[in-house]
């Protein structure tokens, strides 16, 4: 491709990538990809993409476009490279944004049990507002050697339904993913819940579970379990992940 086409294409890709990031920000789906703590970086990225794209457009329009280039022939863009650069743009705009779901646990599989929970004894505990979430409970479990001392405590958590081979037929996981930086480091955590045979929610369905804690045996160990009073299906929350 000639010089002009290449510059034009680069400008279009840069502006397109900037708009893709902008779309993720405005549609509220940025939280499906990265920890909200780093959202400001995405703002910076969107602005830089558009600024660089407009800079190239400016060069095309300026009379001095015949001036010697800083990056001459060694940096020609090939069509496969264009395809590669367009990939995040196409995927970001064409594929509907969806957070990680139950299907990702099988490969991620970092552990749904309390001891593997993120940041167990560290000081990054969140300020207590509202009922404890799944992460808060797992931290509490890891500092409580005997689960039966927690029996009877009221529980009010939200998460998605997940079942694995270790579950008894009347057990489900109420799960969440925790992420530190972005979904690349997601790990799944969950609380066991006792359900009766009438429970028919599929994996991935988000639920709000209220009830009390009890104790059950899971994979040969005594672990806490939710004895639900109520399990209600809810739409996926705006912020699907927990931040350890």
């Amino acid at each position, binding site marked *: 491709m000639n010089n002009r086409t290449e510059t*034009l294409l*680069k*400008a*279009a*890709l*840069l*502006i*397109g990538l900037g708009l893709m*990031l902008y779309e993720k920000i405005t549609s509220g789906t*940025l939280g*499906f*990809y*990265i920890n909200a703590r*780093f959202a400001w*970086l995405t703002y*910076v*990225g969107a602005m830089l993409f558009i600024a*660089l794209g407009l*800079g190239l457009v*400016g*060069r*095309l329009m300026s009379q001095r476009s015949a*001036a010697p280039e*800083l*990056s*001459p022939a*060694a*940096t020609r*863009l090939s069509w496969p490279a264009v395809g*590669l*650069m367009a*990939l*995040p743009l*196409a*995927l970001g*705009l064409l*594929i*509907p944004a*969806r*957070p*990680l*779901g139950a299907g*990702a646990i*099988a*490969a*991620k*599989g970092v*552990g749904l049990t309390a001891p*593997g929970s*993120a*940041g*167990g*004894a560290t000081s990054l505990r969140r300020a207590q507002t509202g009922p404890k979430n799944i992460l808060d409970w797992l931290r509490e479990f890891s500092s409580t050697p005997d689960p039966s001392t927690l029996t009877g405590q009221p529980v009010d958590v939200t998460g998605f339904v997940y079942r694995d081979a270790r579950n008894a037929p009347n057990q489900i996981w109420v799960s969440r993913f925790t992420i*530190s*930086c*972005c*979904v*690349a*480091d997601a790990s799944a955590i969950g609380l066991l819940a006792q359900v009766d045979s009438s429970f028919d929610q599929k994996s991935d369905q988000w639920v709000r579970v209220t009830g009390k804690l009890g104790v059950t045996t899971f994979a040969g160990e005594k672990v806490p379990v939710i004895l639900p009073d109520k399990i209600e299906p809810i739409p996926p929350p705006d912020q699907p992940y927990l931040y*350890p």
Partner: protein
Amino acid sequence: MEPKKLAGVAAAILAVVLGTLALDSLSGVLAGGINLPDAAQNFVTVFLGIFIEAAPFLLIGALASGFIAVFVTPETLARLVPRNIVLATLFGALLGMIFPVCECGVVPVARRLYRKGLPTPVGIAFLLGAPVLNPIVIASTYAAFGPGPIFWGRIGFTLLIAVAVGLVFSAEPNLIRVLRPRALVVAGGMDPAPARTSSTAGAQVQAALNAAANDFFDMGRYMIGGMLIATALQTFVPQQTLVSIGGGSISSVIALQLLAFALSVCSTVDAFLALSFINTFTTGAIIAFLVFGPMLDVKSIVMYLGVFRARVVVYLSILVFLMALVIGVFINLNVVW
């Protein structure tokens, strides 16, 4: 401005905007209809997650590179770099304190500095050291771990490996045998003289922005290629086995090094991730994770291949992997914190 040219540019911008809006509304329609299989959907989510997290850093690196291209002359650089080889390598490892870049952003900057005539070992030390030895990463590591052994271990051992590997490469001072030919623009490895001919500051800034845009495309394709591999590793290879060997004094170090390699998490934020291993993994393993990850991961290795000859990347990878491993195991076996 020729009207025809202007019309062409306007049409291109319009096409991008309209295309984006069309794709956007199309994606709304698709959301109801087409559902990708779970594995494919998760692949897309993880890939975009890595891209959205890393792209701003590559842009910042490309921007730094663009401004160096225009405003730094080879003479200035030659004056700054110490004559003594050890001091020069140390200078390279600590150059990140001036150019705060992560492992994505460091590659275009290093390539640009090579074009300005930076000696081979200094550039290698910069490449390996800068992603950790810069204000942003030092601050985020401090925020995650405080001024303890992990914080100081990360800084000290990164400096050690960066300088040591840099010195190893001083045995091969000829840039032509280290870099890929296309990474050096003209014979002799020098940039064309900076655009001093265009006198106004505005023109110089525009030249810098344009160089940055070109750098983003030069390095972006390698970054995206690396991201695809990293995403595939994550989506399709179970990590359970890796994490289940967290206790052994040697196996834990190897496990976290492999995890750092596969995850390709940006060095500016990986300290917060490492925090979640603190109960399950040994101290040596966590330090190895924090030292090795920023130097080498799936994404950066593909980017290195865009700049260095393949043979050099292989030597570099083996050296860095083994040194981080030795350090991690040494800490586990000999040091009681």
